[in-house]
């Protein structure tokens, strides 16, 4: 990084945060602090919903997913548009009719206080733990690649987001989201254009796409019914539907983004804006990863992208042999790809098939050496971090892009980190204040100034907790999956609570409360004892909560009937 990069990075990130804090410094109204400005339009709501979901991990891990496993991850988002339609039609009108600050207030209205506390507690547990991950994830990757010390990056990022989120609450979050999304979009478009311009001579864009396809990176849709496959149309449609429904419908960090605004229309259009754009957007980001795979067949790159980890462990001659073998395999792969391109242009099907087989074999050889490198790392140190896909895109940014663009792309990463973190902190602060503090201090509800002070303090406390968690905890290697797995374990049951509330009118608070506890226990036991795609836990948790609620309600109703007759 040079001076130009630093200027772009700091001016963008600190500038947006300072602007958000300054513009919202006068917020004294609890409604504005918790739900945003009442005049917020659908465009701002839509961008805010998008920015909340798009964490820095999204922009670091997803191109890595495309590079490593291809673009099949896009299927994960198939349930999202359907879920958003359901949220618009069912959840949002109910939240607005009840005029709630948090989604969990609805559970109190529909059931009872203990069910509300359970729902809010599940949210705080899941989102509170994830808050540490979302601050740690980009920090560790950027620090590793750029050689920056990790702890100051975590603390600086944390303090910046705490400052404007505590100052302006939900209004500051929505205001900064607009500019952060602009930076993210500018960064990703810049990266895509520069990547396309740097694709190897003779292949260009269309040839590179064809090569990525021939090398198995463009299998976007998989209709397989094999439950052990992580990404298929069915896991995306069903598991993804339940994950998205619980995330957008019951997670306060999202609910808070769209329950404000002058009317139901604004929230609905903001959500549908995401329903239309999300899959194409993720497809483009995954394609960046797939094209990076082709790019790196022709550009020198390390056998293992997390070079800090490699240098830490790869000391003896065995690793030098792996590096040499990888360079040789890469040269063979380049030749094989060029031969395939020529064969493809010759319109000779038999020649093309032979060249394709040779290209795939050469690529398999290069991939086998990468696998060998990971195995050697593990042999050297069983605690070594052997997944390097999160480092692919950032390595491309810092080694291939011109100065200025590097600063812009890093600004996009940090903008994404701050945007998702701000929503989380605001939601955690709101839920703790409204669903817990007010529950135990009911007389304080009428004191608006005190509510504001408490909401600010809880928001700051959650921020400090997230920073401390990021500083002192170790995390799973694939960061986006760590968050999705955590979400899948808790979200299903939380969604079950809300679906029972919306659609099973005869089920009461006690039945759904104990059913939710039993279902959550079941999901945790299954997670530690079975090997199935994690998205299925959304479906399992939700279905178990609903089924057990029906069974318990039937038992309770029968007992009440017997008791009634006996008396």
């Amino acid at each position: 990084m040079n001076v130009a990069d630093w200027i772009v990075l700091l001016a963008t990130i600190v500038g947006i945060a300072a602007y958000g804090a300054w513009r919202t410094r006068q917020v004294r109204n609890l409604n504005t602090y918790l739900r945003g400005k009442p005049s917020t339009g659908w465009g701002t709501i839509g961008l805010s919903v998008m920015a909340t979901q798009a964490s820095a991990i999204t922009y670091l891990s997803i191109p890595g997913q495309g590079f490593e496993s291809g673009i099949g991850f896009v299927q994960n988002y198939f349930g999202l548009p359907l879920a958003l339609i359901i949220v618009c039609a069912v959840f949002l009108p109910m939240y607005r009719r009840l005029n709630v600050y948090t989604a969990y207030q609805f559970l109190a209205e529909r059931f009872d206080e203990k069910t509300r506390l359970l729902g809010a507690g599940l949210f705080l547990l899941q989102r509170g733990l994830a808050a540490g991950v979302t601050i740690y994830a980009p920090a560790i990757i950027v620090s590793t690649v750029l050689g920056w010390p990790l702890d100051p990056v975590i603390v600086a990022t944390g303090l910046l987001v705490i400052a404007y989120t505590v100052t302006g609450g939900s209004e500051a979050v929505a205001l900064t989201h607009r500019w952060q999304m602009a930076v993210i979009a500018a960064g990703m478009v810049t990266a895509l254009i520069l990547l396309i311009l740097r694709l190897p001579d003779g292949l260009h864009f269309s040839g590179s796409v064809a090569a990525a396809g021939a090398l198995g990176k463009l299998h976007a849709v998989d209709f397989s019914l094999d439950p052990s496959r992580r990404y298929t149309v069915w896991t995306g449609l069903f598991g993804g539907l339940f994950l998205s429904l619980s995330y957008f419908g019951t997670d306060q960090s999202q609910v808070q983004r769209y329950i404000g605004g002058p009317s139901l229309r604004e929230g609905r259009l903001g959500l549908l804006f995401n329903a239309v754009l999300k899959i194409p957007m993720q497809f483009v980001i995954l394609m960046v990863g797939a094209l990076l795979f082709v790019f790196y067949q022709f550009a020198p790159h390390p056998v293992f992208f997390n070079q800090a980890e490699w240098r830490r462990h790869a000391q003896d001659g065995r690793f030098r042999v792996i590096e040499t073998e990888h360079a040789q395999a890469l040269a063979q792969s380049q030749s094989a790809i060029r031969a395939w391109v020529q064969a493809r242009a010759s319109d000779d099907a038999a020649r093309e098939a032979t060249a394709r087989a040779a290209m795939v074999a050469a690529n398999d050889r290069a991939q086998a050496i990468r696998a060998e490198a990971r195995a050697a790392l593990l042999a050297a140190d069983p605690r070594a971090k052997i997944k390097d896909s999160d480092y692919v895109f950032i390595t491309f940014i810092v080694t291939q892009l011109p100065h200025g663009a590097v600063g812009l792309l890093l600004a996009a990463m940090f903008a994404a980190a701050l945007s998702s973190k701000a929503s989380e902190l605001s939601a955690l602060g709101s839920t703790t204040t409204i669903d817990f503090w007010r529950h135990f201090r009911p007389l304080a509800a009428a004191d608006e100034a005190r509510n504001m002070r408490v909401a600010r303090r809880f928001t700051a406390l959650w921020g400090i907790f997230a920073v401390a968690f990021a500083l002192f905890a170790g995390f799973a290697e694939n960061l986006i999956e760590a968050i999705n797995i955590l979400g899948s374990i808790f979200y299903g049951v939380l969604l079950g609570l809300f679906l029972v509330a919306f659609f099973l009118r005869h089920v009461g608070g006690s039945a759904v409360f104990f059913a939710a506890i039993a279902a959550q226990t079941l999901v945790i036991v299954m997670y530690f004892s079975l090997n199935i795609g994690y998205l299925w836990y959304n479906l399992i948790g939700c279905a178990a909560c609903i089924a057990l609620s029906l069974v318990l309600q039937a038992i309770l109703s029968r007992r009440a009937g017997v008791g009634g007759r006996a008396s």
Partner: protein
Amino acid sequence: MTSPPRPDRHRETESPDVPGFGTWSAVYLFVFGWFVLVVALLTVFTAMYA
């Protein structure tokens, strides 16, 4: 007073005010149709390149 202001009930039932769409059901149908089109295009993309 800390309760949020009550939303205007008339505005809660208003039409989507989106050109070409008279009801929210029509808007949802459009979004669903768009989703089906995107999945169909991805399926074609997979058949072409994978």
